[in-house]
């Protein structure tokens, strides 16, 4: 199913081999509950040797001795969260600071939301928005288990998220075809299901007519990013990410915003992820702005994790100092 990307994915044979292999599992230690070094000592005492990712102090590779990382006392007590390594990248690229006002526009099931809370040391506000009730339940359970007090949940369509609040940083981890999460032999079927499930879920939640094509997904992604651009303060940051390889869902969406809004520029990410490739400037006859090379593509043969795309957009201007207490309504 990935043959259409053979011209854009470096070492395509290595990529094709990687997607047929099982993926490593990763966790993120919750520093509000335990220091990473203490966590390593504690789990080593139980016979499990967690290896650090190396580029993120809280990130670790789950050792093969631990078959069920979701069935440990440490997990139940909120000492860590299970999250793929590549999924940890978008919050690091957004790089929120304690006291910030952050909007996570498509938040559920919440791995990135809880990571944002962690990066902010639970100081400030993360508005975690999503539309789907079942996914919000999972988000709530993660927030409770990990003990994050700086998040508040809202349930509105992201593409028409109300005004009245502005944010210093916005994460758009958009619904996508999910190609990057595929590992195994049923790639084609799973990816098509992912597209259909996303479309069907939106149809149920919004009452909109059936949405079955990738182009419809592109329109949603474009609308989400454009809405985020209206919600971020001058000088603020918007990060757009997906877990798919499709340039239509990635570079084309960011390119659309850059053409529509000349007050946004694409920045290099502030984190150096091993094996990350630059974004594309052309695909299948379509040319994107040269700035798209500042986006990053993550491939499973370069980083043993899900495939991802991430782009950091800055709205030009000077970021206003935080209001006293960081109240976004102030």
């Amino acid at each position: 199913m990935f043959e259409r990307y053979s011209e854009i994915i470096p070492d395509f044979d290595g990529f094709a081999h990687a997607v047929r292999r099982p993926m490593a599992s990763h966790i993120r230690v919750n520093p509000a509950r335990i220091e990473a070094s203490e966590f390593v000592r504690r789990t080593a005492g139980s016979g499990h040797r967690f290896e650090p990712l190396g580029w993120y102090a809280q990130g670790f590779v789950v050792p093969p001795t631990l078959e069920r990382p979701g069935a440990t006392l440490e997990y139940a007590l909120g000492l860590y969260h299970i999250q793929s390594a590549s999924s940890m990248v978008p919050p690091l690229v957004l790089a929120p600071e304690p006291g910030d006002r952050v909007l996570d526009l498509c938040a559920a099931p919440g791995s990135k939301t809880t990571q944002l809370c962690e990066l902010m040391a639970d100081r400030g506000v993360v508005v975690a928005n999503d539309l789907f009730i079942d996914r919000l339940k999972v988000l709530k359970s993660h927030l409770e288990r990990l003990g994050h007090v700086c998040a508040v949940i809202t349930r509105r369509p992201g593409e028409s998220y109300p005004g009245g609040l502005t944010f210093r940083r916005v994460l758009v981890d958009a619904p996508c075809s999910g190609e990057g999460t595929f590992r195994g032999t049923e790639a084609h079927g799973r990816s098509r299901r992912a597209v259909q499930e996303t479309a069907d879920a939106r149809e149920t939640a919004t009452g909109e007519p059936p949405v079955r094509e990738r182009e419809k997904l592109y329109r949603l992604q474009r609308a989400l990013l454009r809405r985020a651009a209206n919600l971020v303060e001058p000088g603020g940051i918007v990060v757009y990410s997906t877990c798919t390889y499709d340039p239509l869902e990635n570079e084309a969406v960011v390119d659309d915003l850059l053409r529509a809004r000349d007050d946004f520029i694409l920045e290099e990410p502030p984190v150096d992820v091993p094996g990350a490739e630059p974004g594309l400037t052309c695909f299948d006859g379509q040319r994107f702005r040269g700035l798209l090379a500042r986006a990053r593509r993550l491939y499973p043969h370069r980083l043993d994790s899900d495939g991802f795309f991430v782009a950091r957009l800055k709205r030009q201007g000077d970021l206003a100092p935080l209001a006293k207490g960081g109240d976004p309504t102030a």
Partner: protein
Amino acid sequence: MGAVRLEEGGGAARARDDVLRYFAERFGVAAEAFDPYGVIAFGSSAWLVSKAMPAPASLRGFEPQNPGVRLLRDLGTFVKPTSAGLRLVGRAATRNVADLSPEDLWPFFERKPIAPPAPIEPGFAVVRLRGEGHVIGCGIQTRDGLVSQLPDSHAAGLRTSLFLAPRAGEARRP
């Protein structure tokens, strides 16, 4: 323990004072344990929030849910501490605390009354894992003994992790 009044919009300072008084009287939690947090009333609950959390009333158009971590539920005639809230402030408890061993926890997770290791006044208790210091959640001391008030999903996760999932090659069910 009926002195806590969780009236939304009733004043953040009063909500905080009431909550701190309850935790001091019931669990001996010093006020300093709440220093990192704001306390707000929202719905029929008190919530632990970051100090930058906007007043829920200002978020009406956004359909806000779950600001922070729910700490106390107002059940009309009394208030009940939540397990999630106790996991944040229960480490500072000095009164009505049950430090349970794994052997105690198996029946506790099945909601069977158990004899606490130390006397507990009738009412809610902070349940901790003996030797670890980690707070597991909430229990209630009844005439029959200490009974779990953990949410089913949390109890199931703890039971699996403590007894059913092999750790370093050993099955731990007592």
